[in-house]
């Protein structure tokens, strides 16, 4: 994976940049020593590492604004960073750029239950939002598995999901407003505590923009009343097809459970030996369904799901009878990634979405690819919304295995697109899937997306080299009117 070539002229001016940035963020706010910089050299996509020129840790919006304005003025690239848990390399630094880390923006600014929202700084972790309101019986719905570490700012940038987003939506469906600092230092407020956007829905655009359009410095999130009851069902199937068909039928019956997760045999065994969740080991697929709401409703749905399970030949059915048991059912699924880490030196998590009915075919073809690439794969997926997470098992110490794992991952994502799906359901494009964007989109489609960069960051200084396979030039005054064929940038820089 190639990143834009570093600019040696910028590298030489490191000392000057350091002094200027220290003047804006004094004290320990700028990191420049080699050893400390190493802590920022990658996010959770560990295969890619790059030490940044400097790391800046601002504490106020004014500082963020001044830092960006300064970088804008001197042409210095900026990579925003929350907690560094991105799985797509979104926070991968640049050699000739700074990392703007939002870790010190860690305060909950306001809990406003009359308006059912919470105002937080972007460095607050996902789980602490719920912690701030749980004693009042509320919670924040989007729940990425990384929720105790990942930041709300990162969630907004990635439009993160979680196991409950089938019923409750992704981040973008659960935020009401943001404060955003643009690359030139200007500050925008989008939304607030009111519901509908004023003018264009720029909030909708910012969410999921992977740090390419602006730096989020405040977020207003919607919180919901915690469900009265939650119960989980574990259904074992003799084949994955039946588990998939069962999921489709549950939805066709008009039920949207709080979560529906499928694990295949490899994942079940790894999870079971890791956390002893009590999973059946003699099944090919395990379907975990969670139902929440008033007890009468949950009871009704439990019956419905059990009956549907039977109809599709479930060979085992277990219902959680206590909160402890429900958590135990989940423990296996939630630990699926580290569990795979126990059975393989390294694993690579893929994240594509397919139309759900394509599930059997997708799994069949993934198994074939596994043969071709000679690497094992374990499958866990958010079955309700067709979001696959094949985990490719490999050993980075063996020559060429990482490359093979990546090629296998890319083949799976191409397959997702071929089956009518998309490259990423929740982890983002980042650097990881950047060069696959042309599989899903035409050049015209990508051009239209990239033009928006010109509205927010015409010089391309904010997180360049991510999401789009080519850099885009903004014409004079932000006008990028490309008449067909006239101005195709044949010499456009590819990474």
């Amino acid at each position, binding site marked *: 994976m190639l990143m834009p070539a570093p600019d040696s002229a910028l590298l030489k001016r490191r000392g000057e940049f350091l002094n200027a940035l220290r003047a804006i963020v004094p004290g320990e706010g700028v990191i420049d020593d080699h050893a400390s910089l190493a802590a920022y050299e990658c996010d959770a996509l560990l295969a890619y590492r790059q030490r940044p020129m400097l790391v800046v840790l601002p504490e106020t919006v004014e500082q963020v604004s001044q830092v960006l304005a300064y970088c804008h003025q001197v042409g210095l690239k900026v990579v925003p960073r929350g907690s560094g848990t991105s799985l797509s390399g979104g926070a991968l630094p640049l050699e000739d750029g700074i990392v703007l880390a939002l870790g010190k923006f860690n305060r909950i600014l306001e809990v406003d239950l009359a308006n059912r929202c919470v105002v937080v700084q972007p460095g607050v972790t996902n789980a602490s939002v719920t912690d701030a309101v749980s004693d009042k019986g509320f919670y924040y719905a989007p729940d990425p598995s990384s929720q105790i570490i990942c930041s709300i700012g990162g969630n907004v940038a990635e439009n993160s999901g979680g196991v409950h987003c089938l019923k409750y939506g992704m981040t973008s469906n659960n935020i009401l407003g943001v404060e955003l600092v643009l690359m030139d230092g200007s500050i925008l407020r989008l939304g607030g505590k009111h519901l509908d956007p*004023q003018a264009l829905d720029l909030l909708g655009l910012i969410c999921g*923009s992977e740090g390419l359009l602006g730096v989020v410095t405040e977020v207003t999130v919607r919180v919901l009343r915690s469900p009265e009851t939650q119960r989980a069902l574990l259904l074992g199937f003799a084949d994955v097809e039946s588990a998939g068909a069962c999921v489709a039928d549950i939805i066709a019956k*008009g*039920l949207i459970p709080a979560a529906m997760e499928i694990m295949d045999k490899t994942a079940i065994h790894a999870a079971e030996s890791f956390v002893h969740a009590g999973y059946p080991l003699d099944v090919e697929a395990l379907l975990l369904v969670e139902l929440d709401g*008033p007890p009468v409703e949950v009871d009704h749905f439990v019956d419905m799901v059990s009956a549907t399970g039977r109809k599709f030949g479930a060979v085992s059915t277990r219902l959680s009878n206590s909160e402890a048991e429900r958590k135990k059912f989940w423990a296996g699924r939630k630990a699926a990634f580290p569990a795979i880490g126990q059975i393989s030196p390294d694993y690579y998590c893929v994240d594509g979405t397919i139309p759900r009915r394509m599930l059997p075919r997708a799994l069949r073809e993934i198994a074939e690819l596994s043969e071709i690439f000679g690497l094992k794969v374990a499958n866990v997926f958010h079955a309700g919304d067709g979001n696959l997470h094949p985990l490719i098992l490999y050993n980075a110490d063996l020559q060429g295995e990482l490359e093979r794992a990546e090629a296998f991952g890319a083949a799976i994502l191409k397959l997702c697109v071929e089956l009518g799906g998309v490259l*990423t*359901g929740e982890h983002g494009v980042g650097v990881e899937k950047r060069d696959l964007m042309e599989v899903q989109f035409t050049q015209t489609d990508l051009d239209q997306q990239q033009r*928006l960069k010109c509205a927010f960051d015409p010089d391309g200084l904010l997180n360049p080299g991510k999401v789009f396979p080519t850099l885009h030039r903004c014409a004079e005054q932000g006008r990028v009117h490309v008449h067909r064929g006239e101005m195709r940038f044949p010499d456009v820089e590819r990474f």
Partner: protein
Amino acid sequence: MRAVWKPENVSAVQSSVNDAIRSGYSLEIVGNGSKRQLGRPVDASITLDVSGLKGIQLYEPEELILVVAPGTLLSDVNSLLESHGQHLAFEPPDYGPLWGQAGDRGTIGGAIMSGRGGPRRLTAGAARDFMLGVKAINGSGELFSAGGRVVKNVTGFDLPKLVTGSFGTLCVVVELTLKVLPKAPESATFVLCGLDVDEASTVIQDVFRDMTAQVSSAAFLPMDIACHSSVAEIQSMGESVTLLRLEGFGLSVMTGLDELSKVFRQSASTKILDKELSKVLWKEIGGAHYFALGESPLWFLSVPPACGAHLGKRLAQELNGRFFFDWAGGGIWFETPNNMDADAFRIRQLLAEVTGNDGHATLIRADERIRSVVSPFQPLPQPLALMNQRVRLQFDPDGVFNPGRMYENIHAD
């Protein structure tokens, strides 16, 4: 009379746009025109009628996916979904009657491009939350797609959301992919009679904070609004009504109603409306049909829900108009008798004062003269106005589409 172009398929739309670009024409994009009087009057050379782009292209109930051409009637979409026990959860409202039109004339394209949600928007999300994918023609005449045909997708910038509610000022949409959801089999409305607006707001906040009943919508109609309801039980009451809609499976709706009855029996006289009456009631609330007979300027204010009662009351008192609120207070409808400038300045000033500048007021109905002198969409603070303009230029650099519909065109310098 301005010329009307009516392309019947996507490539004809594309040729129309290219013809317009070549000739330096601007286009007013219309579906069935049911919301044509919402927003600033458009000064365009040609009317581009896209109502000929009709039809359901794909409907997969089990995938929760609907792909549809923009000119398809919303009522056709609704009946198709209904026959599979599904619906558009954001409950697109029918504003036609506000302009004296027959109901149900709107297209799905119009519903999405105006971005408005009905009463369930409070808990289920807005139009933008259900827009998964879009195919459109930009102002350079290029056909592009964004988003996808699956319910979970974060690949690339979220243009489907950006296009929703843009009133045709970015591109001509030729295909929409929407997320559909199962419709709750049962619903009912719990009515508290005779509360004043502050009491209503307190009740609603308490319900959302402390109670387990699954309330999907909450509205308050003062007496002078309730008396115009087409639901006889509400119309004949002679009192204000505070309305809580419950939706779900039969048993959960019943349990919720029981809980509400137990809590509120003592403090107010209450009533329950069944599924059929609820349906009529929430449809008229969504479309603000209480104002259908009048012609006075009509506003919709989007504010933090807890501000709704106070702001509504002050608007009615100080400007001598009528209001009601939906979205638990987050959406205020206000009709002013002022036919000169629709009280635009005063309304926005009050909104800013009461909410601390958190919200906006949109002039939904007013005659053309008023809509050309006051901005129907709330003027934006400078940096935001600039950004809206810059974003627009990235889609439509020459200002071909719906010039001035949302804001007066500021040309790029």
